[in-house]
């Protein structure tokens, strides 16, 4: 199932055939069904998907912060610098988290502790992980806040999260993720809650820091515009599976999966309106009743008998490209 293309060097993160399910009293919801993707150092991978596609659950499993129960990793590997995180002990994973793997959440206000000043929270990272002194930790907190562009950092280091605006809070979240210079940052919808003008500032900051620290970045989002702006490669997810991976330019120019194509065509553009938007018919499937065959076939304009019965593997659809569509070639040709 994993792609055959050999990456040039050992990737930073290599997720292989990951499976996660949620055991609820109403049945088992298969949230992630064999997801594979890789991220190299200094690279930005965008994981694109709608609600219920499993994009966030995959990230939680990688971080090791999956709520369990009800969530369980039932298969696969998460290779971080060649080591399978799933085989590590609780304590070892905790040490990797924060120091080498960091996460940025959508809602900075609820991800920050409201009763501690931001300086204390930032300093905590240094005190816990590097045993810095109180004074030293505070100085480094101020330096970090300056680095992420918080004006008057020295005066504001003692302020509490609610005293900052949404954009500033997201910068503080980024500062916290950055504190220990991790090798990989996972950003889960980091700008969804922000206004466009602020969103642009925050995305620019993230891209700049990624270059500066040569970090890997996984950007989880549903926004095709944000992806086009910052990603190197894209993994498109649907119903708990990766349905297409490709370098960003190729994917936008010629998608190799009908779902990706539908998504691209259904986004309204800033240009003049001329015709109704293309709309993918129907709705994503329930995770407790994933259709047989290709999971997208009930909504797919190209679906044939084969799609209703046989689940497509991730075909190689070109150099560095994969597509989980039996008819990827037709899709690709149709798009060109």
């Amino acid at each position, binding site marked *: 199932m994993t792609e055959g293309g050999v990456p040039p060097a050992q990737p930073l993160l290599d997720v292989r055939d990951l499976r996660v399910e949620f055991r609820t009293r109403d049945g088992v919801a298969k949230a992630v069904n064999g997801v594979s993707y890789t991220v190299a150092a200094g690279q930005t991978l965008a994981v694109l998907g709608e609600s219920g596609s499993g994009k966030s659950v995959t990230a939680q499993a990688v971080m090791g912060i999956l709520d369990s129960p009800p969530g369980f990793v039932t298969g696969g590997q998460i290779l971080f610098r060649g080591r399978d995180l799933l085989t590590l002990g609780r304590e070892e994973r905790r040490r990797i988290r924060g120091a080498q793997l960091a996460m940025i959440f959508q809602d900075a206000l609820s991800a920050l502790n409201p009763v501690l000043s931001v300086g204390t929270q930032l300093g905590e990272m240094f005190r816990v992980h590097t045993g810095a002194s109180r004074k030293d930790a505070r100085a480094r907190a101020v330096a970090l806040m300056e680095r992420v562009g918080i004006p008057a950092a020295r005066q504001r280091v003692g302020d509490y999260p609610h005293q900052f605006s949404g954009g500033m809070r997201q910068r503080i979240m980024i500062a916290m993720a950055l504190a220990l210079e991790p090798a990989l940052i996972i950003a889960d919808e980091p700008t969804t809650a922000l206004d466009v*003008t602020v969103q642009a500032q925050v995305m620019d900051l993230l891209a700049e820091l990624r270059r500066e620290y040569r970090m890997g970045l996984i950007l989880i989002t*549903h926004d095709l*515009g944000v992806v086009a702006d910052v990603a190197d490669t894209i993994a498109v997810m649907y119903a708990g599976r990766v349905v297409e991976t490709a370098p960003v330019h190729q994917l936008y120019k010629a998608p190799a999966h009908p779902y990706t194509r539908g998504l691209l065509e259904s*986004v309204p553009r800033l240009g003049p309106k001329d015709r109704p938007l293309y709309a993918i018919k129907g709705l994503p499937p329930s995770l407790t009743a994933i259709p047989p065959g290709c999971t997208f076939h009930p909504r797919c304009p190209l679906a044939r008998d084969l799609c209703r019965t046989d689940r497509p593997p991730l075909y190689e659809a070109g150099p560095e490209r994969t597509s989980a569509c039996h008819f990827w070639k037709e899709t690709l040709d149709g798009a060109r």
Partner: protein
Amino acid sequence: MAPDDPLLDVRDLVKHFPLTRGVLVRKQVGAVKAVDGISFALRPGETLGIVGESGCGKSTVARMLVGLERPTSGRIGYRGQDITRLSGRALKAVRRNIQMVFQDPYTSLNPRMTVGDIVGEPFAIHPEAAPKGDRRRRVQELLEVVGLNPEFINRYPHQFSGGQRQRIGIARGLALRPEIIVADEPVSALDVSVQAQVVNLLARLQGEFGLSYVFIAHDLSVVRHLSDRVAVMYLGKIVETGTGEQIYDHPTHPYTQALLSAVPVPDPEARAHRERILLSGDVPSPADPPSGCRFRTRCWKARELCARVEPPLAVPDVLRDATGPARHASACHFAEERRVVPNT
């Protein structure tokens, strides 16, 4: 009423929320100037898009239009009568004609009511709109119109997805055959593929029922797709208004230009040759807006004049003689056309 007369004529609309202090004796210590004197008109069959970032007052405008909030001052003219002065029966009659579609499909439907009761509630409140025996049939028709199975009438909201719920909300808004629908971020809570379905539905219904929309959103692309005319709001004021082409392709106000340039474009090729205007800082507090032009604290063109004199929303002097689409109302002393949207 002549066909070209505006259906809605909003003049100098103001909403200030008082800031009070004290427990027993309340003392007003200031006011949040959520909406601070805006005027616009809505013509029959037209869609007016209102865009702006959070806190600019666009939702407060929506709530005043449908009577959920009483304006501090100003006038909302509907077919010649000022509805802000109406109450009781007269207000109820006007409400039939101005309906609202809400943003969050999860909180806008009562979880304890069936779809039939939700969509039929307008008839229960306005019994004259449909005879009792006819209501069930009318509700089923409405469900069909918005693309839902009429047999779903006895189901509860939690049995539907977000997109389907939004359709239920639209069916409720259509029940009384209103002339105007005020939609406050109707698709921003939906997934991309479902969002397109609902946008298309709104466009189709407009043609079918001859509706006029006030479409409020922060997503500039969706607004462009649906709107005939667009008003850009910043900190309680309209800063620029014009047709879709005028605003998107020929913006003259620096805020509009910055806003448009910040919209992520789903085209990686545009990355390289796109010019981005990055604004510094945050939106000031509406409780204490800057003097003069409200945008001046973040504007790269700001000069001493901007702090002193508030620019009116009118065709700027420098563009008065222009003939092209750049000639439209823009509240800037130094208005100047600048194209920021790449041609796609």
